């Protein structure tokens, strides 16, 4: 069924509308704005829910000249991400109502969070490459604002900058990849619209000719890598994972929402979305290795974490690695792993983040070493944690177990496939690495769970029960995770939870290539293993090794910390080195002097250089100038103007300089009168007068005399001034020499006056005798509107600058 156009557009616009209204709502409701935002999110969720069962594209023209449109595509994967964004959104807003109690900047917080939700829904449903890119970057911007929520804390600012730098830079790589795709698509007849990513007549629908065309043009690997960098930065894959742990500076609801359930999923969403297009051996190599390395490295780092949010951050990166690795595998199973784990991870990880928020809020610390035995004080939270953490560990029958089984299965089959087709036996490293990484996942998951058991440290004070607004969302998420887990148990005995399985099936369909994938198209179902298989053995080994090594957790952690402290192994060391080095380097001081004259110098020279070299490159010839027939009056006026200009350089003080300069201005006004342009002359006269007055007012504050000028600088300034003068002169000569055939002036002359025959009213002509003014207020009124906006803005800036200086602010 085709999705309803109105509903799809409403899904994306509703959160932005809510965000725009938030400041007003906050004035009325105060802290209860959280529930307004939750209502908006619930509205979005309902709209997304009404889209279930539909499938297809909705197109709104955007930039038709370039074939760019606001196209939205509804399918399983889009619905999954959309449901997560709006569904987790509802819970996070409710939770925020408790968590953000008494925090500063709430209007900004809720507005940004709603805008983020809208952007994320945009990413989920966008079917146009440019639209996808725009929404993608909008999520980066809102994430920047939310991470930097505590803008007075240096750590927040550092974290916000870091995430912005990494994700936006990655987004630019992705944009280049998208543009290459569009360039290739323009030459493929099966593609109707070069920027359309999904849907009928789109790039993905024409995957086979697209890949062929990319290969012949040698663009396949570049596109794959460029899109890969975009996805990897967004989804915190190694070595770009470093921004995610810092992003935990954000308020915890933000971490749960953006940095576990949704925004970081944008990257894996992209991988899942383009998988049908780019799935090849190179794809498996790039994303399989990227995913497994990320999964393992960040799982090891999570073991070394000292803060519960840090642990969860690394673990998020690790599970995103698992999803990417799943999508990287060739089989239908690969898509199953990716699609199913997106859902599972969002459920258990968002729940765990909310738990972390509750713990930090009620126990007053997030340090792992200071926490323990919380189950007595927080029994409900402990139960939620048990479900979620055991799912994260991959223990049956909890939800994470099934998707991890799919991963093991997919990795095993893929490795076998490549080796049996003459590949290197090194492919067998894939399953080994998968198991190795999973052992660490098991370790940190159990460590997190153990916060609630064992002895309560004496230093830990009294732990209060959290408010209902904070418990409820965590319970809902944990409950959903439990339902998914129990669905597998029921599946084992033949009772299938059909709505869930068919939904996950449709999610998987989105990432499966249309033709010829091994494994075929069968319905999706999941259940506990009933027979011994290699992947069951892999799971058993993981859990067994994990259980055996857990007693040595502290020693493993110290070992990892020792390795982690080696500088050149840390991506952070490179990041900090690069950014700080750039900050300190003298190159910056040379360019950014803070002196207006340096910038003016560079701007003028660049402008002159570019313009002159463009003329030279175009090979234009200077027109010959006819001096004959020049009126004597004009010669006198312009002669005086030139003398005035020369006299400026000899003026002994600012005031006399400005007065001399105005000679030039008034001469130009007389020139206009002689040239029969009374309007221009009037304007020039009045403006010149006013400028003179303002100049004199400003000069009052400057030293009266220039002082001595050193010769080198005078020479330099003369060269720059000469170059700019030359450029302007050449430009004027060239532009006035051209006489295009189709002169727009003709149109104005014909239409601006009162037509010979006319009724009492008419709209098609200017109806004025003054062509200049008719152009300004009628034909070109839009330009004028822009200009007066600039004038108003200039006045505002002057007011602001003056006010800022009076308050003692600088810059």
């Amino acid at each position, binding site marked *: 069924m085709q999705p309803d156009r109105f509903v799809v557009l409403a899904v994306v616009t509703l959160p932005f509308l809510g965000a725009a209204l938030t400041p007003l709502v906050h004035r009325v409701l105060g802290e209860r704005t959280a529930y307004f935002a939750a209502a908006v999110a619930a509205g979005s969720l309902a709209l997304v829910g009404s889209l279930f069962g539909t499938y297809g594209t909705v197109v709104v023209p955007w930039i038709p000249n370039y074939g760019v449109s606001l196209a939205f595509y509804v399918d399983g994967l889009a619905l999954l991400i959309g449901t997560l964004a709006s569904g987790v959104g509802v819970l996070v807003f409710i939770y925020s109502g408790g968590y953000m109690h008494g925090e500063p900047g709430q209007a900004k917080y809720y507005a940004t969070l709603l805008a983020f939700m809208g952007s994320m829904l945009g990413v989920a449903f966008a079917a146009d490459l440019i639209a996808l890119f725009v929404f993608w970057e909008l999520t980066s911007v809102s994430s920047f604002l939310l991470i930097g929520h505590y803008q007075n804390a240096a750590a927040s600012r550092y974290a916000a900058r870091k995430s912005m730098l990494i994700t936006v830079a990655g987004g630019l790589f992705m944009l280049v990849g998208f543009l290459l795709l569009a360039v290739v698509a323009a030459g493929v007849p099966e593609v109707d619209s070069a920027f359309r990513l999904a849907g009928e007549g789109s790039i993905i629908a024409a995957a086979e000719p697209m890949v062929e065309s990319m290969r012949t043009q040698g663009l396949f690997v570049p596109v794959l890598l460029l899109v890969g960098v975009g996805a990897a930065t967004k989804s915190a894959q190694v070595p770009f994972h470093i921004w995610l742990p810092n992003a935990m500076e954000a308020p915890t609801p933000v971490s749960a929402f953006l940095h576990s359930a949704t925004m970081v999923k944008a990257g894996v969403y992209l991988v899942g979305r383009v998988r049908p297009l780019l799935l090849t051996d190179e794809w498996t190599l790039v994303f399989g290795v990227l995913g497994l390395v990320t999964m393992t490295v960040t799982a090891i780092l999570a073991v070394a974490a000292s803060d519960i949010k840090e642990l969860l951050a690394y673990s998020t990166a690790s599970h995103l690695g698992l999803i990417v690795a799943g999508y990287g595998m060739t089989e239908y199973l690969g898509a199953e792993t990716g699609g199913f784990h997106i859902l599972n991870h969002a459920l258990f990880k968002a729940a765990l983040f909310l738990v972390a928020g509750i713990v930090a809020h009620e126990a007053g610390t997030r340090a792992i070493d200071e926490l323990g035995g919380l189950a007595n004080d927080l029994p409900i939270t402990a139960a939620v944690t048990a479900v979620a953490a055991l799912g994260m560990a991959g223990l049956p029958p909890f939800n994470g177990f099934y998707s991890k089984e799919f991963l093991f299965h997919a990795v095993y089959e893929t490795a076998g496939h490549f080796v049996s087709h003459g590949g290197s036996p090194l492919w067998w490293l894939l399953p080994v690495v998968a198991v190795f990484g999973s052992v660490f996942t098991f370790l940190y998951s159990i460590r997190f769970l153990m916060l609630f058991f064992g002895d309560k440290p004496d230093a830990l004070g009294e732990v209060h029960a959290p408010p209902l607004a904070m418990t409820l969302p965590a319970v809902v998420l944990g409950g959903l995770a439990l339902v998914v887990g129990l669905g597998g148990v029921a599946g084992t005995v033949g009772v299938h939870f059909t709505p869930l399985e068919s939904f996950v099936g449709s999610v998987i369909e989105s990432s499966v290539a249309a033709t010829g994938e091994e494994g075929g198209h069968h319905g999706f179902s999941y259940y506990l293993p009933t027979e011994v298989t290699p992947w069951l053995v892999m799971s058993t080994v993981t859990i067994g090794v994990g259980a055996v090594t857990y007693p040595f957790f502290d020693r493993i952690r110290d070992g990892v910390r020792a390795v982690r402290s080696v500088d050149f192994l840390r991506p952070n060391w490179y990041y900090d080195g690069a950014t700080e080095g750039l900050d300190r380097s003298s190159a910056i001081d040379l360019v950014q002097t803070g002196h207006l004259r340096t910038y003016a110098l560079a701007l003028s020279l660049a402008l002159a250089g570019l313009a002159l070299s463009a003329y030279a490159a175009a090979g234009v010839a200077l027109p010959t100038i006819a001096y004959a027939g020049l009126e004597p009056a004009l010669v006198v006026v312009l002669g005086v103007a030139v003398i005035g200009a020369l006299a400026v350089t000899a003026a002994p003080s600012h005031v006399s300089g400005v007065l001399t300069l105005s000679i030039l201005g008034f001469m130009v006004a007389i020139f206009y009168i002689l040239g029969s342009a009374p309007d221009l002359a009037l304007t020039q006269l*009045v403006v010149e007068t006013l400028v003179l007055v303002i100049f004199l*007012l400003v000069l009052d504050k400057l030293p009266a005399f220039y002082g001595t000028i050193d010769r080198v600088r005078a020479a330099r300034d003369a060269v720059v001034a000469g170059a700019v003068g030359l450029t302007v002169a050449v430009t004027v000569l060239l532009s006035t020499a051209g006489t295009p055939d189709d002169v727009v002036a003709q149109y104005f002359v014909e239409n601006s006056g009162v037509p010979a025959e006319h009724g009492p009213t008419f709209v098609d002509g200017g109806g004025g005798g*003054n062509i200049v003014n008719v152009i300004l207020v009628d034909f070109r009124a839009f330009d004028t509107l822009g200009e007066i906006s600039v004038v108003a803005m200039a006045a505002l800036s002057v007011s602001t600058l003056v006010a800022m200086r009076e308050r003692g602010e600088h810059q």
Partner: protein
Amino acid sequence: MTLDRKPTVIARTVTRLVVPMILVTAIALLLQGHNLPGGGFIAGVLTVTAFALVYIIYGLDYLETELLDRTPAVRYETESGIVREYGRVFASGLAVAAGSGVAAMVLGYPFLTQAVAFLEHLPVYGELEVASALVFDLGVYAVVVGALLTILAEVGAE
């Protein structure tokens, strides 16, 4: 900008005479702009020169103390006082200009379409041409006056 010395009697008297003339001229330029030299921009700038003259000769606070009969706001306090009112002038000017465009849209024409109407048999004038562009021009005028006066007052107060 207050001068150290008081301006001469000549300057003060001439200003008194000239300022109303400038203002009337400015309004004339605004109204005749459609058919004769003039228009919102030039009229706006001319109006500001009249204000500039008053500021220079009589000082910054003169307008508020003598004409509006109130105590001038504390200097640098941009939140209140005459600068704020100038801000309202250019803001409403912008609204008028944009609103005239929206009005055309409401009537089913593209944004900023202008119309002309001829009124017949009026006393004194006989036939009078009324251009909707005048409303837009009025917006331009208000923006220019408000913005330039803001700048003048702020810079002058320095």
